[in-house]
């Protein structure tokens, strides 16, 4: 395997852009990534793109083909990766593998999305053989309710308070004020978060990420190419994809077995441990983490799942300010999904952008001081998990 560098990254700001197509959002991100990399479109040898269910892609998830047609059809291969909300992370992993495996030298990874209004329907399938369909038809448990169930369980186990849940959101917005790409660049008080409507008790509106429009792109290349271009490359120390294990205890579909141990979101834990192993790093070596905070619950649960802290310790780290960019365990210095909103399939690439800026020391007022090693993580429907470890 060859060393792989992230040569350049670019994003379109997240928000609601009714007058722009997903192709236009992607164009902005790609143009910015190419400029950042100092690479011409002609030099891109392949595209690894996140497949969207909601926008563009000719209804078939051919979102990479849209980008190539828009930028100029040079005849290059396009890999459209579908993995629910993990699609961007999945696309990065494929792009990485193609460069590391010596197939191509310069690859573009891109994810863009325009989301429909409101809370999304989990499954696109209306068949009585589809477990997601059955779960929604027979029970009525959309995504936020699923997160609320996990959150309530944690509150029972560790005594997590409603104030602590709200403080995760307060912290997210506190840092997002300094991120020009964030959708919400405004501080929220604890009272404002606690005063927002219950979406799925115990979770409130400001404790759940909304859906957004947005796009992100990254140009990755071989080490040889990176040295030629004399840029400031950030290196891919690890990139991994996983799926959920059979003994996972999450209530997916209608039912599973009562699990032998405590293992939830095994797809995320597996991907993270694989990426760390590739990087030759231990969890405590990480200087910061960008994780998928669809809701405040995950910012408390994931760090302990991955060995970044002890079970039940995340609430204390939060209270002491240790998850801020200047703390011991900075989590989501970008502002995270809570501040960006989820442009589902762009998120894995969005994280690569933030990791890169942080590792170059270009993150301004939200900079993690001296950041050398960072982790990004996404997960998606179907039990898809992805992780990436970047270093400088």
């Amino acid at each position, binding site marked *: 395997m060859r060393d792989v560098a992230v040569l350049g990254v670019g994003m379109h700001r997240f928000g609601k852009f009714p007058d722009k197509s997903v192709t236009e959002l992607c164009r902005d991100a790609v143009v910015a990534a190419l400029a950042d990399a100092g690479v011409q479109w002609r030099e891109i040898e392949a595209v690894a793109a996140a497949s969207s269910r909601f926008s563009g892609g000719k209804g078939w998830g051919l979102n990479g083909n849209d980008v190539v047609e828009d930028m100029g059809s040079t005849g290059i291969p396009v890999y459209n990766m579908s993995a629910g909300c993990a699609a961007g992370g999945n696309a990065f992993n494929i792009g990485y593998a193609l460069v590391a495996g010596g197939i191509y030298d310069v690859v573009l990874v891109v994810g863009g999305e325009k989301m429909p209004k*409101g*809370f*999304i*329907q989990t499954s696109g399938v*209306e068949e*009585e053989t589809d477990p997601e*369909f*059955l*779960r*929604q*038809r*027979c*029970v*009525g*448990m*959309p995504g936020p*309710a699923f997160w*609320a*169930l*996990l*959150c*309530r*369980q944690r509150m*029972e186990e560790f005594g997590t308070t409603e104030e602590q849940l709200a403080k995760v959101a307060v912290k997210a917005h506190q840092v997002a004020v300094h991120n020009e790409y964030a959708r919400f660049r405004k501080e929220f008080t604890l009272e404002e978060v606690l005063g927002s*409507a*219950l*979406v*799925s*008790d*115990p*979770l409130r509106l400001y404790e759940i990420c909304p859906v957004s429009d947005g796009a992100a792109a990254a140009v990755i290349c071989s080490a040889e190419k990176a040295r030629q271009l004399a840029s400031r490359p950030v290196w891919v120390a690890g990139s991994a994809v996983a799926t959920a294990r*059979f003994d996972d*205890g999450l*209530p997916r579909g*209608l*039912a*599973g*077995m*009562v*699990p032998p141990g405590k293992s939830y979101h095994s797809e995320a834990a597996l991907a993270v441990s694989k990426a760390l192993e590739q990087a030759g790093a231990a969890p405590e070596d990480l200087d910061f983490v960008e994780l998928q905070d669809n809701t405040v619950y995950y910012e408390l649960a994931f760090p302990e799942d991955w060995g970044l802290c002890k079970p039940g310790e995340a609430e204390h780290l939060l209270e002491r300010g240790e998850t801020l960019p200047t703390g011991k365990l900075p989590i989501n210095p970008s502002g995270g999904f809570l501040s960006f909103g989820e442009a589902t399939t762009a998120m894995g690439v969005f994280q690569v952008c933030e990791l890169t800026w942080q590792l170059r020391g270009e993150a301004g007022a939200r900079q993690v001081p001296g950041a050398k090693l960072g982790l990004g993580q996404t997960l998606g429907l179907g039990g898809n998990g992805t992780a990436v470890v970047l270093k400088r």
Partner: protein
Amino acid sequence: MATKRVPVVEGLFSEGADGARLTGSRCATCKTPYFPRSDLCHNPDCTQSAMEDARFGPQGTLWSCAVQNYPPPPPARYDEPYRPYALGVVDLADGLRVVGRMAVDDPKHVKVGARVELVLEPLCREEDGTELITWMFRPV
């Protein structure tokens, strides 16, 4: 005239003299329970898939609960005007962890760790008054 009651989806549950049960399968080799029915054991460590019909319930413990405060998107069903309902994840005594609505009037009255039992209750009503039935859990 008695109200017509039909399952919201066929083949998932039944009610006998012994009360409500979920209809699924269990692998005779590795004992893994499945709901809904499965033709194949999905346990990667199982040496020989040997699926048998199984009925699950009615006793269980509430692993967690939450409230659905807003009307859920399709394909969920509910009666107008919308009333928030409680959701539960229940560990049944026979080894199945299953999701379901809680059959309670006030969602706030549901507590994690509570003993619950399986019941069959209306999810919503059709225009002609027909009740669409699903499985739910009621604290005991």
